[in-house]
């Protein structure tokens, strides 16, 4: 076979004719590109599932081993803040879904509005989380040298069940997991918010309302995924045997 023939053929490689500018050269069509990106995002989310999976696995084991400690630890969390945060995050998911819709129907202003809403809600979530973290610091419930089991051995709330010291020690494990899981989740939120700023800026330039909705859609998937993680974290961390 004459390889020269091929080489010279490249010189006359057909130019991109009539393809939208965002179509990358190695894709054959817009829909191929869009589906590849969409599928790629889902595959990436699979890895995220497994990433959190390791922590859920640890949580499950220790919760079964040290159930009383987990109940006690859970009951120190502020349920109002927790529930509010859940609602905030769900709302942000909703605004994100609306952003996708806005991009799909090519409304730049609407897209920017909903992206901005999502950013605000994201910050509200992180703010509330910060307040909760702060409370834990004040209460000496952050694992480490300053961790105190006092509250669990001699609870200030007379209705709460007192733990024996050995079991109370295990609340530290609960809080380790609490900080680890919510911390990882918050990290994802922070990454998400940074990306949102970028998207907002690009949306302002009109990048996503000309048919190129893929980045918005994919980011939406990411954001909803972060929401889902919280949907599980909330009952697992906040709602253990509240009736005590």
């Amino acid at each position: 076979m004459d390889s020269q023939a091929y080489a010279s053929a490249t010189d006359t490689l057909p130019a991109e004719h009539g393809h939208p500018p965002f179509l990358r050269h190695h894709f054959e069509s817009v829909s191929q590109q869009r589906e590849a990106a969409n599928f790629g995002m889902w595959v990436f989310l699979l890895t995220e599932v497994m990433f959190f999976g390791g922590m859920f696995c640890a949580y499950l084991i220790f919760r079964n081993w040290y159930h009383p400690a987990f109940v006690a630890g859970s009951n120190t969390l502020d349920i109002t803040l927790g529930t509010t945060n859940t609602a905030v995050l769900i709302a942000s998911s909703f605004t994100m879904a609306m952003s996708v819709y806005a991009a799909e129907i090519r409304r730049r202003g609407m897209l920017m509005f909903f992206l901005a809403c999502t950013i605000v809600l994201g910050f509200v979530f992180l703010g509330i989380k910060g307040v909760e973290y702060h409370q834990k610091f004040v209460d000496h419930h952050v694992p480490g040298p300053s961790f105190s089991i006092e509250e669990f051995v001699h609870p200030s709330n007379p209705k709460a069940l007192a733990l024996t010291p050995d079991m109370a020690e295990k609340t530290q494990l609960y809080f380790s997991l609490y900080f680890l899981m919510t911390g990882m989740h918050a990290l994802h939120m922070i990454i998400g918010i940074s990306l949102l700023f970028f998207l907002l800026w690009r949306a302002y330039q009109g990048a996503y309302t000309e048919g190129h909705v893929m980045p918005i859609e994919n980011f939406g998937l990411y954001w909803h995924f972060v929401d889902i993680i919280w949907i599980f974290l909330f009952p697992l961390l906040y709602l253990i045997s509240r009736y005590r």
Partner: protein
Amino acid sequence: MSHISPVLWQFLVNWLKHFAIFPPEASTIAPYADALYFALVGMTIVGMLLVGTMVTFFAIRYRKSNHPQAIQMEGSTLLEATWTLIPLGIFLVFFVWGAILYFRIFNPPANSMQVYVVGKQWMWKAEHPGGQHEINALHIPVGIPVQVTLISQDVFHSFSIPAFRVKREAIPGRYTTVYFEATTPGKYHLFCTQYCGTDHSAMIGWIYAMRPDDYRKWAAGNTSGASLAQNGERLFAVMGCNACHAGNSQARGPNLYGLYNSRIRMTDGTTMIANDAYLREKILNPSLHVPAGYVPIMPTYQGQISEEGLIDLVEYIKSLDSNYRLTQMMNKSELNSAQPAPIGGANQGPGAAPLPGATKP
């Protein structure tokens, strides 16, 4: 000899001196393990021969000069099924065989002699119920099943006796057990096989398998005076366990007599067997499992008591069980009597009972 390099020379000498390719078979388990091993080697040889002949034969028969035109074919469901099912069958046989051996090694007979081994970076500390302590060595009688209860003070270690074909990990925070019954007196390697830090390769020692009477002599000569259970009894008083576990009806804690190996009902309705692990757990994390009918007021002793101390306590509580005492105490009193063993084996004069297992056929 100067023209032979020292390394090569050492090599030659070594070759002659100890060219071993097979470890000694010195326990009752070893023949079982070796049988399995040879069967597996047989499988490998068969597999290799099969694959090897196929590949070599085809390579020669169908080499290009001999067979210029390849004949295309798709596949064959029959063949496919054959080489799926036959290896599967073979592997399953080995699965069953291996599982049987595994359970044999890790489930000691009830009458076995107890030895405790604590691993720490980087030494093995063995304790016999009679109070003999050794470091990086373990003396055991032949012909008697020995159950080793292992625990680690720091990281994972692994207690390995190749000549006995047994090995078990010593884990921090939990008892594990392994058992063996030596058959041939001798001196065997003891290795730590789990990587445990800098001096992992120095965490080695010797197993001395001795004839029962020799063992008795050794035990008598090395006892520190108090048996583990006696130490434990002292600790039981010192640590204040007596205060609650006095064994009478006013006591706040349950009676510990006969506790060992009994089945206990917990407050949450489950039942547990009071084995060594349970007893240890009880002392360190008393409120983890609370026996039915009691409030969890027992304090934790975590951090106040060494692994050795725990072993003493556990051995003491175990000795409160008459069954356990029966199998072990005789052995102990035997050792404490410190008399030279009469010729003729394990059975001794009045008062001294035979070593457990010594009467086994």
